[in-house]
C-alpha cells in the first residue's frame, strides 16, 4: 500500500465511521422519542 492508496483508504474509513456514528445518533434520538411517546400514552 503506498501513501496515496492509504489516504483513500483513510477517507473511506472516516466516511464509514461518520455515517455509522450519525446513524447511531439517529437511533439514539429515535429510541428516546419513541419511548417518551409510549410512556406518555
Amino acid at each position, binding site marked *: 500500500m*503506498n501513501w496515496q492508496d*492509504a489516504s483513500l*483508504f483513510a477517507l473511506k*474509513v472516516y466516511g464509514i*465511521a461518520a455515517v*455509522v*456514528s450519525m446513524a447511531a445518533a439517529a437511533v*439514539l434520538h429515535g*429510541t428516546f422519542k419513541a419511548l417518551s411517546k409510549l410512556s406518555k400514552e
Partner: protein
Amino acid sequence: MNQSWLEMFGGIATLADAARINPAVFWARIGMILLAFLLVYLGKKGTLEPLLMIPMGLGMAAVNAGVLFLDPVTAGFVNNGEPIAEGVRTHGTLFVAPLVSETNSLMNIMQIDFLQPIYTMMFSNGLIACLVFMGIGVLLDVGFVLARPYSSMFLAIAGELGTVATFPIAILLGLAPGEAAAISMVGGADGPMVLFTSLMLAKDMFVPITVVAYLYLGLTYGGYPYLIKFLVPKKLLALPCKPVKPLRITSSEKLAFAVLACTVMCLLFPVAAPLFLSLFLGVAVREAGLTYFTNLVENVLLYGSTMFLGLLLGILCEAGTILNPKIFKLLVLGILALLLSGIGGIIGGYIMYFATGRKYNPAVGIAAVSCVPTTAKVAQKCVSAANPSVIVLPEALGANICGVITTAVLTGVYVTLLR
C-alpha cells in the same frame, strides 16, 4: 572471586555484562529506570494519570533493574525444536515473556514468571481492555448524549481526525497497514481500543504500540490546555453554550438505548463485538439499577484491571522495547495522532460555533477526543479559567461519550477492513 561476588547481585551483574557486550542495552536500562522514577513522580504530582502511572512506573523500574542470567527457555526464547547449547545464558526477568506462543514454552514459563498467568489470560487476549471498557460503561451517563445527540456525535467525528489522518503518514513512514491502523488509534485517546486494535492487527508490535499509547494518553490532561489556549482566543473561551431544552430522561430509556445500540453495533462490526458488549454492559448494569453489579464493575473490575494494566505496561517496558527500530516512528506518530485529533475536535467546535450563530464555545470540541472524562474536565477547566460562571461540562460530556462510541466504530472499521 570478584565475578562470583558480582553474580550474587544479578541485576548489577547483567548491567555490567550489558555495558561490556551491548552498551545500547546498558544505557536503555538506565534510561528506563530513570524514566520510571519520573513517571511515578509525575503521577504523584497529578501531571499524569496516577492510577496508571504509579503501577506502571514501579513495574518499569523493577523490570529494568531485575534482570538476571537465565537459560534461554526460562527466559522465554523458543528454540523451535532445536537443541540449545549447554551453558548458554541470556539476560531475562521473572516477570513475563510477552511474545511466547509455543504451547510447551508457554506452560513452562507460566510456572516461572509471576505475572505470566495474568498477562496470558487477561492482557494478550484483550480481556483486560474489555474489563476496563466495562468500567468506562458504568461511568457513562448516556443522558448527556440523549440531550444533544447530533451535535455531540458531530463533534466526536471531528475529534477522530488524528485517527484517520495519521494512517497514510504511518504508511509513508514504512509501517505495515495493521501497524499503521493500530498506532493511528492513539488519536482516539482510548487505551483499551489501541490495545484491542494492535492485538488484532499488529500482534508483534502490540507491546510498543500499547506502551506508547498509554504514555501519551497521560499527556492529554497536561498538554491539551495549551492546544486550547493556542487555538481558541480568550473572548471565545469565555462564551457560554446555547442552553438546550432540559429533558427528563428515564433510566429505562437509557437502558433501551444501550441494548439497541449494542445489538446494532455488533451486527455491523462483529470483530469488535467484545468491546461493544463490554461498554454497553456497563451502561446497562448502571441503568438497570443493578447496584451490586455496578459496584463490582466500578470498584473492583475497573480499578483492579487498571492497576494490573499499569503494572503490566510497566513490566513490558524492558530496555529491548525502546531499542526496537520502529519505536521512534511510533513515538512521532502517536503524538501526531493525538495532536491532530485535538485540532479536529476544536475545528468541530468552531463549526458548531458558526452553525449556532456564535452561541457555542469552540473549546468544547476538545472533549470529543474520548479520554473519558479527562478531556471533558480539560474543556471545563480552560473555560472556567476564562469565565468562572460558564458551565460547559454537560456539552463536553456529551461529546466525550460520543467520542467513545466513534472510537469503537473506527476500531471496528479498521479491524474489519484490514484483518
